[in-house]
């Protein structure tokens, strides 16, 4: 739930980075923290275990700048990825404006990705949120590793798309991140499908981190209009 102050012309939005344990959610925030001008961001708060596993969440407020005359601030949160921490993970989704799913590209983490994606849908549904209707971006992290699955396989497993019933949205939309692919397309059966935008990333080096943030920022701010 974004907080909009019309008097001071400020917008505050909540973004949540979701995904399996050790997938790179905290690393995304650490990269943003390291690169953004200190005047444009707050402290990075981490509620983590002694071994730096996220226990409850990480939190980083970032000033994006002025959009349409409104000072725009994003509150970035991560959730604990480990299956064990579902109770606290669900709490962080309360009032979310946009979700980034950070998938671990490694072949052997496919099951964990699928389980986490299912868990995201379930937890969102419990709040009455529909993931197909709110700003949602998928990031395929760790693309530099030799055991990374092909993006095509990851897309098929984690981001196959959902049916588009609104006739106004039934038109082909090319995917700017994957040439030759589409974000909205028609099946031979006539049914229209839409999928979430996706980015490849190597969060430890910062590749794809800001691209992902930019995509979800656009979707969130456009949803306010």
């Amino acid at each position: 739930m974004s907080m909009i102050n019309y008097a001071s012309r400020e917008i505050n939005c909540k973004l949540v980075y979701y995904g399996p344990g050790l997938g790179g959610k905290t690393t995304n925030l650490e990269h943003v923290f390291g690169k953004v001008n200190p005047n444009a961001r707050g402290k990075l708060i981490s509620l983590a275990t002694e071994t730096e596993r996220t226990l409850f969440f990480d939190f980083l407020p970032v000033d994006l700048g002025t959009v349409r005359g409104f000072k725009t601030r994003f509150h970035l949160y991560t959730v604990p990825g480990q299956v064990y921490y579902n109770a606290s993970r669900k709490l962080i989704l309360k009032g979310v404006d946009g979700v980034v799913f950070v998938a671990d590209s490694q072949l052997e983490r496919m099951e964990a990705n699928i389980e986490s994606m299912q868990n995201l849908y379930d937890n969102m549904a419990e709040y009455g949120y529909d993931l197909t209707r709110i700003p949602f971006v998928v990031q395929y992290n760790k693309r530099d590793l030799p055991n990374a699955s092909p993006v095509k396989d990851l897309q098929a497993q984690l981001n196959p798309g959902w049916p588009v019933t609104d006739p106004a949205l039934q038109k082909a939309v090319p995917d700017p991140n994957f040439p030759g692919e589409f974000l909205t397309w028609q099946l031979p059966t006539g049914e229209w499908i839409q999928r979430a935008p996706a980015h490849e990333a190597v969060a430890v080096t910062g590749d794809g981190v800001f691209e992902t943030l930019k995509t979800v920022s656009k979707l969130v701010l456009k949803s306010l209009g």
Partner: protein
Amino acid sequence: MPGASSWSFKEEDFRIISEHMNALLRETNVKSLLLVDRTGQVVANVGEKPTFDPQAFASLTAADFSANDQLAKMIGEHEFSSLFHQGEKESMYLADVAHRVILVALFDNRTTLGMVRLKVKTTVEELTKVFEEMFSRGETSAPKLEGFASAEVEDEIDKLFG
């Protein structure tokens, strides 16, 4: 946003909320009072200006309250409507208001927990009426921001990211 519980308040609501908070501040001698919504955003703040980052504080407050709500359910309680954290010099008392916001009182040895608890209870009752009246106006969806659905917004964001 479909499914999200959005609410908005007007300038007059804000004035009434601030009046109640300022009255509590005077009556109890607490250092400062914050009103934080359950998603972790600061709604209002009166008294001494916090020396900490209010946004980080709000996010932790909301998380603190949410975690304690779950703990309450586990032991068969519906909720813990208030929480108290005691420090050596500084303490804080948190109270739920209408299940949507949290009133946080920060205080030191210039007042007592008993006084804070007693007076906060009355303020919570008053604020609950204010918020319930606000919510009863209907869950009107937040007014759309003019021009935000346009392509220019994308250009502006592209520029901000450089």
